[in-house]
């Protein structure tokens, strides 16, 4: 696979401001942080959720309970894969019954990761609401899924890919628009 960077959509400062706005919006929509929990979708959704939580702690003087979701077991494309993807740990060490769960992911595209995440969350209980926070909405939905909090909406073509880079695992803090020769989007392992 060859990758060509076409544009730098958000830089480090922009990312910081966007995360800060998402934190304010989450607090505003939920009228505070009572009964609100964050669940990050592996891999970068987790780091994003951690940063949002850090901002919420700054705003509200108290952080939210945070969980980590690995959606691999809920993927709908096992039949198309040649070998089984690597599983990682899911860590939700609190009860989500009657909670407002904010699901955090980096890029919303086909909606299939979100669908899998919704199904996975249901295995932990019955939350009052599940809200979806994404850094980038790049369109091309294949399922009826709509985000509640969006960092940035983009118009993209199918041959493009939007990549969030985060210092926690990458060497930079930014969002890139890259061109790939992959025919179809694949959920990140």
């Amino acid at each position: 696979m060859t990758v060509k960077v076409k544009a730098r959509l958000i830089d480090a400062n922009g990312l910081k401001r966007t995360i800060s706005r998402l934190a304010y919006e989450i607090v505003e929509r939920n009228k505070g942080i009572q009964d609100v929990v964050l669940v990050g979708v592996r891999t970068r959704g987790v780091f994003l959720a951690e940063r949002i939580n850090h901002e919420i702690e700054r705003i509200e003087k108290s952080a939210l309970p945070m969980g980590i979701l690995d959606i691999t077991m809920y993927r709908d494309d096992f039949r198309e894969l040649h070998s089984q993807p690597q599983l990682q740990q899911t860590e939700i060490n609190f009860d989500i019954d009657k909670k407002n769960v904010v699901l955090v992911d980096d890029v919303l595209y086909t909606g299939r990761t979100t669908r899998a995440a919704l199904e996975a969350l249901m295995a932990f209980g019955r939350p009052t609401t599940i809200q979806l926070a994404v850094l980038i909405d790049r369109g091309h939905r294949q399922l009826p899924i709509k985000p509640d909090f969006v960092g940035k909406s983009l118009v993209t073509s199918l041959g493009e890919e939007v990549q969030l880079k985060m210092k926690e695992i990458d060497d930079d803090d930014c969002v890139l628009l890259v061109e790939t020769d992959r025919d179809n989007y694949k959920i990140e392992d």
Partner: protein
Amino acid sequence: MSLIRKHLLGLEGVEKDELNHIIQTATSFKEVLSRPFPKVPTLRGKTIVNLFFEASTRTRFSFELAEKRLSADTLNFSVSASAVKKGESLRDTAQNIEAMKVDMVVIRHAAAGAPHFLANCIKGSVINAGDGCHEHPTQALLDMMTLLEKFGDLQGLRVAIIGDVLHSRVARSNVYGLTKMGAEVALCGPSPLIPIRADQWPVKIMNNVDDAIFWADVLMVLRIQMERQQANFFPSLREYHNYFGITVDRLNRARKTLTIMHPGPINRGIELDSELADSEHSLILDQVTNGVAVRMAVLYLLSGEK
């Protein structure tokens, strides 16, 4: 990494990174088992047959539960209720399974090599759930997972396998697996119950159980298989208990705390004192819990298109 093999017939020849990969995957599934709704849709649409030609409670339930937790469709075939009673051969049984478009077969059989034979006749994946006195790979995997949880690393860990090694598929799979993982293994039992070629394995052989207790960190106590003792491998159960039984007295004399494991079912008071089986140093019930997670991992990893 991903598992490249199609079948799990034994642990002989399975490499350390594969063992670690299976156990790491099992850790993810263990978390699933602790959820309020302990079920995932991962193997939805897959059909798995459990072919048990030999009596089993724990292993069969463990596989069946693992399959159900993964949302696979399962069929159970046990010898008393099957056409085998009417004289059907394993090849015919296999062809019938093949005709029913089954994705995976879990097989337990009294004949060593039956899973290998089956693997050659069908398109689906075959998992050995115990073949004769040969191998029982998922048991050894769950034993290693349990030891890893307790000790963090198996490098240099001293595991003494005690009892009827000759008839034990659990012992063979553990010898292959544990030594690959860097553990030191000793086999201890009455000489007639130690396999003739055991000296070709990378293990120590001990005939005095007190030596094994002195040497080991972990005692893996095997079941005296009453059903295989017709040939008088030892004079009596009482004598076996006196010379090889793991008792509170023996461990007190050794003045050390050892971790106790047993693949079950236990003959309490023969190979292992009840008090030790139920003590805080016993991992026996952890082994059972981890068994479901390990089997989920094996089913998941083998179920990919190969």
